[in-house]
């Protein structure tokens, strides 16, 4: 049983390194048993080394760095045991523009083996989607519709150019 666990552990660990390396453009990540002689009991620690930085525990990272670590873990687990769809609500809240674009592109690539439904307020993210569902509130009632690709671009420009 421990052998099975270690086997799957290594698959996930390897995929985690690869995914984190991609999302952070050069960082490294690792899963380490807290206690090598009692893996089941003491659990697994998650550490990362952002590009050009030193190894840190996740708790010492900035908001954006934590977000990238979480997403790497989610995608690594998917590789090991896929789920058919992912529903994500504003996962880009703490990301700078460059990271929003990187994550958006990565989701688009992953969308070949899972369905992604993502809520986002950031154009760099949602402009990478294949389809856009626009939601508006009129008199306290939510209206919803599938946006044609030029309609959604129009919404984005209107939002970006928003005058208070």
């Amino acid at each position: 049983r421990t052998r099975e666990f270690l086997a799957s552990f290594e698959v996930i660990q390897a995929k985690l390194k690869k995914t984190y390396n991609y999302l952070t453009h050069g960082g490294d990540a690792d899963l380490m048993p807290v206690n090598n002689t009692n893996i089941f009991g003491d659990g697994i620690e998650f550490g990362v080394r952002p590009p050009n930085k030193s190894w840190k525990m996740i708790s010492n990272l900035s908001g954006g760095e934590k977000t990238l670590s979480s997403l790497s873990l989610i995608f690594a687990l998917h590789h090991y045991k896929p789920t058919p769809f992912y529903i994500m609500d504003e996962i880009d809240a703490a990301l700078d523009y460059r990271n929003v674009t990187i994550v958006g592109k990565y989701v688009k690539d992953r969308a070949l083996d899972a369905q992604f439904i993502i809520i986002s307020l950031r154009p760099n993210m949602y402009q990478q989607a294949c389809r856009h569902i626009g939601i508006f509130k009129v008199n306290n009632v939510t209206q919803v519709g599938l946006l044609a690709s030029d309609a959604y671009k129009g919404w984005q420009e209107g939002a970006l150019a928003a005058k208070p």
Partner: protein
Amino acid sequence: LCIKAIETYNFKSYYGRKILGPFDQKFTAIIGPNGCGKSNTIDALLFVFGFRSSKLRAHKLPELIHNSDGRKDCSSAKVTVHFAVMRTEAEQNEQVEAFSIGRSISKSNKSDYFLNGARATQHDVTTKLREHDVDLDHNRFLILQGEVEQISLMKPTAKNEHEEGML
């Protein structure tokens, strides 16, 4: 398995009957201004999956029924999620199966489940979802608003349970 559309009736800010979708098989983005109802879309999905009201930002299930000035007359809410099972072979997508899962809630807190339109139990619904690999034990498919950072902050033993559960 993919989600085709979410049909709602008097659910949270969605007064009357609304259809959210059709969702793309690959990557759909839901956009709109603050407070318009985007996160409520996810709540609709989770409601059907059997999540408890606190996960849907409501203290009790009847709070999910639409309620606003001049529309206090809604006595029930219902959500139906339309799924399709696709097979992808040689770049061709072919629909192998289609089914729907629904759930309703009444003002008196009576909740019913539906499978392909017919009354069913919560167990029928979750079994159907698990058959298609939806991870209802750890909810790995779901990242709610404000939650993404703490996924990596999971306690070491919690990660362990996660992994064991996946074996």
